């Protein structure tokens, strides 16, 4: 009994200072020891817990299919990935699309465009919305990932996941947001509707860019853990929690543009708490993934 309460106390303490993961980390390490990684279990783990930062890149790479489940193949497959990176990079230099001074995220964009056959005829062509989205995601990823090859592959695969797997679901997220906001705080929803702000919320920033450029990277990666492991619905709850957190401020504003502008530039000091609460809300409404380890 005494031991139990002590343990609980410690858990609460760990949670507060961010070390809750001691046991979670152990169970993830156990999963990562397998010769052949169990993708499904890794997904479930990432859905339930924040990934320890030392394993995040590895798990993301596995979940996004950049490296295969077999440990034994990782070195060989990464060798192929690196060669492909160099091939495409060099090609862009040859056709003078990039120079040594080109910012890294723009290099990534051009590489991605070349690989997907959407490279414009000319380097000075204006950017499409999807290019702007790509750049925002790349900029955030650049802050999280040190190695350029890893970073390119992660951005590119992440964007591909959004464009393929979540293609049909992403446009529906504003509708879900409306439903859950109605459930959680219908007065706030009524206010947003009354000043015609609901249809003008920063949906591109929230749902296309997945909060890249909205949340600082340390909070953002905990949201992306969920997106990469299979749930883009988490985005709805982050948006919902942002609305709930800044309710007072929003209620005081009556102009749609002002509301949008505020939401596009939310204060960065308590975003960790926002993400934690968003994850709780998401578990509350969508259930906690079970069958772990």
């Amino acid at each position: 009994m005494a031991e139990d309460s002590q343990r609980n106390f410690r858990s609460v303490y760990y949670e507060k200072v961010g070390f809750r993961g001691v046991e979670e980390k152990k169970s993830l390490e156990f999963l990562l020891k397998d010769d052949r990684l169990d993708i499904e279990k890794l997904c479930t783990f990432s859905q339930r817990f924040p990934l320890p930062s030392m394993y995040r890149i590895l798990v993301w790479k596995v979940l996004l299919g950049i490296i295969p489940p077999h440990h034994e193949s990782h070195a060989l497959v990464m060798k192929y990935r690196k060669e492909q990176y160099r091939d495409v990079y060099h090609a862009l230099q040859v056709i003078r699309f990039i120079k040594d001074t080109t910012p890294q995220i723009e290099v990534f964009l051009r590489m991605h465009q070349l690989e997907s056959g959407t490279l414009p005829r000319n380097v000075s062509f204006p950017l499409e919305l999807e290019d702007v989205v790509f750049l925002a995601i790349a900029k955030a990823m650049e802050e999280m990932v040190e190695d350029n090859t890893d970073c390119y592959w992660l951005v590119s695969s992440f964007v591909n996941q959004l464009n393929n797997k979540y293609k049909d679901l992403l446009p529906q997220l504003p509708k879900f947001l409306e439903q859950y906001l109605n459930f959680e705080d219908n007065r706030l929803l009524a206010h947003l509707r009354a000043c015609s702000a609901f249809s003008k919320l920063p949906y591109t920033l929230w749902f296309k860019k997945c909060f890249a450029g909205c949340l600082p990277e340390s909070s953002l990666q905990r949201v992306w853990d969920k997106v990469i492991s299979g749930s883009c619905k988490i985005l709805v709850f982050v948006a919902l929690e942002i609305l709930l957190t800044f309710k007072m401020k929003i209620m005081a504003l009556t102009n749609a543009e002002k509301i949008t502008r505020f939401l596009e530039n939310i204060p960065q000091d308590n975003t960790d708490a926002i993400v934690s609460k968003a994850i709780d809300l998401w578990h509350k409404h969508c259930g906690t993934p079970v069958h772990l380890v």
Partner: protein
Amino acid sequence: YLEDVKIQARGQLQAVESRYKAQKRITQTFELEILDLYGRLEDSLLKKLEDEKTEAAE
């Protein structure tokens, strides 16, 4: 175990295939670039010829 070997092989194959596809995209891109460059070279040659003609006529 057999299934395991198959999955492992597929993982490797997928990566080599992606590298091959990228290389193919590069070839296509280069092809377009070459056409474009020839076009520009011809334009500049034509313009030069015209300029020379105008000069001769003056």
